[in-house]
């Protein structure tokens, strides 16, 4: 590793206090970033500043603290929008990707899906981008079609083409797979969707922390993402939607903040995005998410990309070379899922945990994908910008321990 890259990494790591935690008496090797990421001190400070100095609620008071909270919250929305390449009035703040997708499934789906219509999802989707479509299709009498993947874990575009016709109203796909780590060709899928008059929703939960996101360049119609997977707080996220689509969608949840006028027996609703933000939002969290995205943008993006690519390539190569290990698909970024011959993923995860290594085991909320790949479950190691070679070394040492226990 070059000296510059080493000093960048050391500086990045020094800002993340959780990396100093001792786990089971060992140095922490946090390789579960696809589940949730660790916050840097400036992000934690931003959240603490809200709790300390900005205690007001948003969108309802005229006193000084309410005004200050309003300004900070709407400023955070503008920041989040800027990092997505979007306009602030096209960004709905949600509790995460799951809520963002459910919002589209319920608000857009109820207005736009009917008997005979179809929704297409891929075979690699997280349950959050599958189950809401199952539910809304069942409710609306629509059909759910599954676009197959190849053995590498990539969406088969020719097979997708064969599923598309005028009945398809929406395609929903993950930008970056949370299991096989493949990157979907969003622009190509968007062109196919629009050619048949369908909309494209992208699940960006895993992509936001690793890829530069520009919703205009991607050509999609909805983009859903989470804060806590992008080095921000839990309970935060966003839905970007094209203004004309949001404007035509009925509300999903009802209550305070989303109404323009309320009489005893009826109400008039506000414009988007407020129409989709009933109730008091996660003010601390949203401001923390904006701080996290600003903090990420302030890092040298080329250095981060080069570091993540090198470490991911090493992780994938060394796992593939480990006796008994099968890497699932052909991961392109951030994530490597694998199995160990004859040892259940939970047993692998418990043993490497003794070496201070945090990995995910099980189905990673993607049961149909595991069935497609012919495995009951898997182990997943997932990277962030602050991971280093010692983290990968610790995982490999842990896997040697697995072989000893189950010799």
């Amino acid at each position, binding site marked *: 590793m070059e000296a510059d890259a080493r000093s960048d990494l050391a500086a990045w790591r020094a800002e993340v206090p959780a990396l100093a935690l001792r786990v089971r008496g060992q140095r922490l090797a946090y390789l579960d970033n696809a589940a949730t990421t660790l916050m840097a001190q400036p992000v934690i400070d931003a959240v603490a500043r809200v709790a300390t100095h900005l205690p007001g609620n948003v969108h309802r008071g005229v006193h000084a603290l309410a005004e200050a909270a309003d300004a900070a919250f709407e400023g955070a929305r503008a920041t989040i929008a800027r990092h997505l390449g979007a306009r602030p009035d096209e960004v709905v703040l949600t509790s995460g990707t799951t809520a963002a997708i459910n919002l589209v499934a319920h608000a857009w789906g109820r207005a736009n899906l009917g008997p005979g219509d179809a929704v297409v999802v891929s075979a690699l989707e997280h349950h959050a981008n599958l189950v809401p479509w199952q539910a809304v299709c069942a409710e609306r009498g629509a059909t759910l079609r599954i676009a197959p993947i190849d053995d590498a874990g990539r969406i088969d575009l020719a097979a997708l083409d064969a599923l598309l016709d005028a009945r398809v109203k929406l395609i929903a796909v993950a930008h970056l797979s949370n299991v096989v780590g493949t990157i979907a060709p969003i622009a190509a899928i968007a062109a196919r969707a629009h050619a048949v008059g369908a909309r494209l929703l992208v699940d960006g939960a895993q992509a936001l922390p690793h890829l530069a996101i520009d919703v205009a360049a991607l050509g999609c119609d909805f983009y859903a993402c989470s804060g806590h997977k992008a080095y921000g707080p839990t309970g935060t996220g966003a839905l970007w939607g094209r203004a004309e689509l949001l404007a035509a969608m009925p509300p999903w949840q009802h209550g305070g903040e989303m109404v323009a006028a309320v009489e005893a027996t009826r109400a008039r609703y506000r414009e988007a995005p407020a129409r989709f933000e009933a109730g008091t939002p996660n003010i601390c969290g949203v401001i923390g998410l904006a701080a996290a995205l600003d903090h990420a943008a302030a890092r040298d993006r080329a250095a981060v990309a080069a570091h993540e690519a090198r470490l991911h390539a090493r992780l994938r190569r060394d796992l593939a070379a480990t006796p008994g290990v099968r890497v699932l698909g052909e991961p392109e970024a951030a994530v490597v899922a694998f199995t160990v011959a004859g040892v*259940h993923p939970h047993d692998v995860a418990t043993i490497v945990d003794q070496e201070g290594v945090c990995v995910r085991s099980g189905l990673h909320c993607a049961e149909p994908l595991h069935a497609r790949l012919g495995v009951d479950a898997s182990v997943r190691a997932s990277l962030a910008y602050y991971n280093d070679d010692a983290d990968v070394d610790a995982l490999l040492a842990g896997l040697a321990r697995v072989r000893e226990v189950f010799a």
Partner: protein
Amino acid sequence: MSDALALYQATIVDHDRHPRNHGPLAGADRAATVDNPLCGDVVTIELRVDAGVVAAAAWTGRGCALARAAGSMLTVALAGLDATAAHARLDALEALVCAAPDAPVPDGLGELAAFAGVRRFASRRGCVLIAVRAARACLSG
């Protein structure tokens, strides 16, 4: 001994690698299946009960080493017991894996005492309890 080695005692690894009473049970008169939808593990226990006593027990399923070993070891432990003694054995195993990490291991558990290491791994209790619940449902069925 590390916690991981305490968890994966030789007895448990042996039952995982060489499960006893594994496969369908000829003449079974009761069966129960319990799964864990979070991880996809599933254990089926089958029993043949003669005059109120477990005459034979077998298991099938898929899962981690703890789930498999629990299925295997329970079929051994329950054979020859009447319903009261069998329930008591299942209750004792559940109490063992749910106990505080440093609680004393009760006498009389026999081979099942190997699961004492699970006390340090709260997230892995459920792996053992799949087989316990299947066996309990079977005895009650």
